[in-house]
């Protein structure tokens, strides 16, 4: 298995990477995201939280698989939709690394990770603009990460209630 993606490291320079290296990087990214959610599932008693994080973990595992296979046929069966960006957590600060995370912190961190991944796929979609399959593939991945961000920001707003 690839080395798990380390979120504290800097974004790689895709200019210097081959196509294969880029895909392997994305796979590591998805594995790390899935592991992050799986850990959250383990750490809670709450059935609703288990379901939420479990679903996100499954989706990231799905991405991992999709990147492994890069199957053109299967991909074109899924039609991407445009997701609303609530931007609820865009201006918030991620908690200091090493500090014990509150639920609020977990949601901010998770939503910001999804944003970073969305931006990364959007960048790759542009990079591969000349290759229709890869261009569409990365665009769709970006949309899906945007959807994860939406789910997490919805949950954040629900948790915080109307006072915020």
């Amino acid at each position, binding site marked *: 298995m690839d080395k798990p993606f380390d979120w504290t490291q800097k974004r790689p320079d895709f200019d210097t990477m081959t196509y294969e290296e880029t895909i392997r990087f994305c796979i590591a990214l998805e594995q790390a995201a899935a592991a992050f959610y799986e850990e959250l599932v383990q750490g809670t008693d709450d059935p609703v939280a288990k379901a939420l994080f479990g679903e996100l973990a499954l989706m990231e595992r799905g991405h991992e698989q999709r990147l492994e296979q890069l199957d053109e046929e299967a991909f074109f069966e899924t039609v991407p939709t445009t997701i*609303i960006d609530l931007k609820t957590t865009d*201006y918030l600060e991620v908690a200091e690394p090493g500090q014990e995370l509150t639920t609020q912190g977990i949601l901010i961190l998770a939503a910001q990770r999804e944003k970073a991944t969305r931006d990364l796929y959007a960048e790759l979609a542009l990079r591969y603009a000349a290759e229709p399959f890869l261009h569409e593939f990365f665009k769709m991945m970006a949309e899906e990460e945007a959807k994860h961000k939406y789910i997490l920001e919805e949950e954040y707003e629900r948790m915080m*209630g*109307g006072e915020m």
Partner: protein
Amino acid sequence: MSSAPQTLTPKERMRIPRQEMPEQDPEARSHNFDEVNLGYDAETAMQEAQRCLQCKKPLCIDGCPVNIKIPEFIQLIVDGDFLGAAAKIKEDNSLPAVCGRVCPQETQCEATCVVGNRFRPVAIGHLERFVSDNERETGQVQLPKIAKSSGKKVAIVGSGPAGLACATDLAQWGHEVTVYEALHEFGGVLVYGIPEFRLPKKILATEIENLEKMGVTFIKNFLIGKTMTVDELMDEEGYDAVFVGTGAGLPWFMNIPGENLNGVYSANEFLTRVNLMKANQFPQSDTPIKIADTVVVFGGGNTAMDAVRVSKRLGAKRAIIVYRRSEEEMPARDEEIKHAKEEGIEFMLLTAPKAMLDDGQGWLKGVECLKMELGEPDESGRRRPVPIEGSEFTIEADLAVVAIGNGSNPLLAKTTPGLKINRWGNIIADPETGRTSKKGVFAGGDIVTGGATVILAMGAGRQAAAAINEYLNTGKWVEIDG
């Protein structure tokens, strides 16, 4: 008392205008902590009570979370039997003088009142307040009869409305009840959160005195989870059951840069300093508070309204609410928003904070904000506020208060093995009975629901009391799902 004639037709009743609540003058009251609402006198209350149509299907009762028999108590006011009216309310609500003041009637009983379909609804809250104040002020509070001792002991953790309501019923049924409270005063948010100008502390003090007369023991400065655990209460102190009503007292933070600067308070700290530690009387009291020219309060709930109105009373020249949604979405009671505006509070709506600004010495000098706009409708058709990029602007301010809500303190759950919590740290409890995942332990109020309302906490305390009573009598424990 004499009985008023019942001669008015429904039309005539509806023609009576809603009786206004007498209030302190806005300019005068924005410099003092005395109660804003002055209360009805008997004549006004009887006039208002005449507006009730005594509906066959009283929708107001459905609107009340604890189903107070509203038309019945209002009829007793019409009949001049004010003590009877107070007793009628107390069948369903242990804290009517509090609820008459702080319940969001406009979204509950008064929202469903039939008169409200064409005119302003019957002022149910004002009437509730009138009869309970009358009972207290005339020294005629009737304490419930206490049943023969059951020989069972119950510990109540937390003295907020949930804990007090639970204690009242359990004491009445003959159980030995002890309330443990972490702070040095009893009442929960009712004493440390809601300011004197909305809820005078003497009201709570009377409630506590009455409970003491009923045999309830109160222990203050006692933090369950630290001084003693729930298991120790049961195994070593011999309690047969424990009710956890510890509330949602852990403030959410905004997680924006500069939030740790001096001059930035959580609403909890700000309000506790004034309400509980009497910082407004410093140096006569021991606790100081920063007196500021411009105060910005973030949030749109009752907590935000309380904080901003307190800051005005402390002497702020500008006191501003910053809220990221529009006024329609503000969860604060309508009356608090109205009163705040009358007192000169500024409202910056569809505005969100981006960063707190440092004066270079570690103190707040201003707040950078972003304008929001209502975004595209989502699947449910709701338009949500989203930040407008590049819309940043600065408000110069020397004090900021974060009032965006509270979560639950993890201490008790962490120190109680077997007590299950949900994803927000709230205790998982059966909504009908308050039974938790741990045998003999019940919970209710904000610790279960997250920040909610006084009446819901009170109702949960009473439901749990009934379930505790049954458990103590039968010894039967049913596991909860989840």
